[in-house]
């Protein structure tokens, strides 16, 4: 008899691993039966998780940390034993803003694009109508990546430009109607905006942080203890799904699955673009190949590095205008659970990093991380501004970014 597990999801391409683990039957091989509850807002995904409608959820990594720290509602401890993927989001701007930025139909260089954006943002601000960017949630990697990039280009978020929350399904319409001038959302919503002629993709979040942490599999910490065997089964099934997902031979099949109404409910062709790292950036434009736009499998991409949680905490403190608190930092760090990931995959051939933390952004050239079998190659992991994040110097990092 298979063990059941209910998983909350939003219609996004980066929910791919649980969906494919289910659709290809990898879960059954692990004695697991997954069911999905599909919603249209993160608030509802979170409510269902906290009140037991779902056992696990596809969740924004910063939201898992904010919930644990009690930002916006009473604190409830969440646990993230698996990173569902790295990056996969993009900055899309209205055609008008693209013209003002003199983009050339390619992904821009983050520094140069930021310098031009600074000029436009200043003009707009002086004219009394600040540029407005939409993000999916205030506690999202989209918000933190966008803010990191803007601030790094000397554009002050919330002062020089406005940042508002917008539900991804409405972002294309909002761009077209001029309600927002740009957005940072996941796929398929950027491609849909391009397809509708509403805007142009000018930057991938992978250009801001080459290996930026995105969604996580989140559970209530208590629930994780109760159903740990099922969670470990799910982790193994999702690693198999990841191996399947990154094989170009499977792109068509997997795009067709993810495109279905019960999952992303999006055109097959648009889903295929995202999962193959091949995007169309401008309406009617050519296909552009941007390797590692989404990063779901290699280099132990799903390993929940504690240092990733700590970086997210540093951004939460930064943008919620809090003070560094060692106790909160500790609770935030403990949301990521490499111990569960290791325990799930012990005894498989999967490489398991022996360290739980690493200096983020330090890898500008290939680096080897040791695992139980020797080592794995970690390629480029830079931040666009060349800075690095040393989790041992968390407080200093937070102080320096004020």
């Amino acid at each position, binding site marked *: 008899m298979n063990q059941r597990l209910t998983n909350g999801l939003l219609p996004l391409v980066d929910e791919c691993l649980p969906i494919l683990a289910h659709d290809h039957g990898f879960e059954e091989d692990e004695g697991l039966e997954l069911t999905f509850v599909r919603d*249209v807002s*993160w*608030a509802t995904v979170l409510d269902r998780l906290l*009140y037991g*409608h779902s056992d696990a959820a596809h969740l924004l990594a910063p939201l898992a940390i904010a919930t644990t720290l009690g930002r*916006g509602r009473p604190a409830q401890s969440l646990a993230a034993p698996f990173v569902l993927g790295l990056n996969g989001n993009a900055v899309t701007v209205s055609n008008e803003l693209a013209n003002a930025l003199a983009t050339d139909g390619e992904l821009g260089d983050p520094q140069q694009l930021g310098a031009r954006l600074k000029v436009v943002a200043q003009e707009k601000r002086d004219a009394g109508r600040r540029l407005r960017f939409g993000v999916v*949630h205030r506690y999202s990697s989209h918000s933190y990546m966008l803010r990191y990039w803007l601030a790094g280009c000397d554009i002050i978020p919330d002062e020089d430009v406005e940042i508002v*929350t*917008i539900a991804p399904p409405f972002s294309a319409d909002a761009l077209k109607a001029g309600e927002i001038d740009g957005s940072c959302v996941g796929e398929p919503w950027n491609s849909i905006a391009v397809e509708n002629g509403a805007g142009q993709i000018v930057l991938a979040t992978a250009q801001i942080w080459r290996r930026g942490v995105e969604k996580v599999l989140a559970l209530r910490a208590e629930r994780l203890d109760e159903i740990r065997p099922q969670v470990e089964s799910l982790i193994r099934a999702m690693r198999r799904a990841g191996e399947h997902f990154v094989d170009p031979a499977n792109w068509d099949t997997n795009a067709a699955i993810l495109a279905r109404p019960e999952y992303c409910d999006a055109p097959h062709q648009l889903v295929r673009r995202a999962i193959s790292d091949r995007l169309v950036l401008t309406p009617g434009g050519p296909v552009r190949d941007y390797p590692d736009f989404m990063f779901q499998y290699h280099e132990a991409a799903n390993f929940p590095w504690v240092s990733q949680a700590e970086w997210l905490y540093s951004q939460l403190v930064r943008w919620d205008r809090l003070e560094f608190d060692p106790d909160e930092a500790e609770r935030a760090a403990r949301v990521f659970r490499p111990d569960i990931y290791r325990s799930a995959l012990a005894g498989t051939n999967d490489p398991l990093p022996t360290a739980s933390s690493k200096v983020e952004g330090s890898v500008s050239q290939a680096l080897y991380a040791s695992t139980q079998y020797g080592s794995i190659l970690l390629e480029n992991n830079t931040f666009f501004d060349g800075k690095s994040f040393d989790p041992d110097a968390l407080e200093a990092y937070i102080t320096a970014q004020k």
Partner: protein
Amino acid sequence: MRIAIVDESAPRASIIEEGLKALDGCEIFTLTTRDGLLARIAEIAPDIVFMDLGNPSRDVLEEYFAVSRALDHPIAMFVDESDDDSIAASIDAGVSTYVVDGLSAKRIQPLLRMTMQRFEAFARLEAELAAAQGKLAERETIDKAKRILMKSKGVSEPAAYTELRQKAMSSNRRIVDIADAVVTAHELMGDT
């Protein structure tokens, strides 16, 4: 007490509104479109906001409650820790509740109860409607199959129905499934 009902389902919103109107001292505002949602909320300055869980604007509204200075009193998700069960029940019913800071749980409870009841009643109505529509569609399929049999075999209507029923019984399937097979086969033969 000023109450805003945010629900993209206009029929459900009006059913809730009707229920709450029966309670004393409630001034009710119903918002069924996302256009200008935040501006309307600012204008209304509600004490309580009820919103359906399936509303795509929830994150937008929560963000607004969390950071906006347009409202005199901060609004937050109603999570009374002393009464976690009622919140779980409201999530079960499909409604989220936001209240202004300082409003006592005692004043909120009757409103919450009424809203939940109405949500649940609406869900039941919808299920009944779906079942009724399903039955109607089944009837149409069976009628179509009967007509096909009558025409192709030259039998009477009762005889056509008997044939469908017997086939269903002998193959341990529902009559509508047999009828559906007949209709599909007929369409495939291109003889419609």
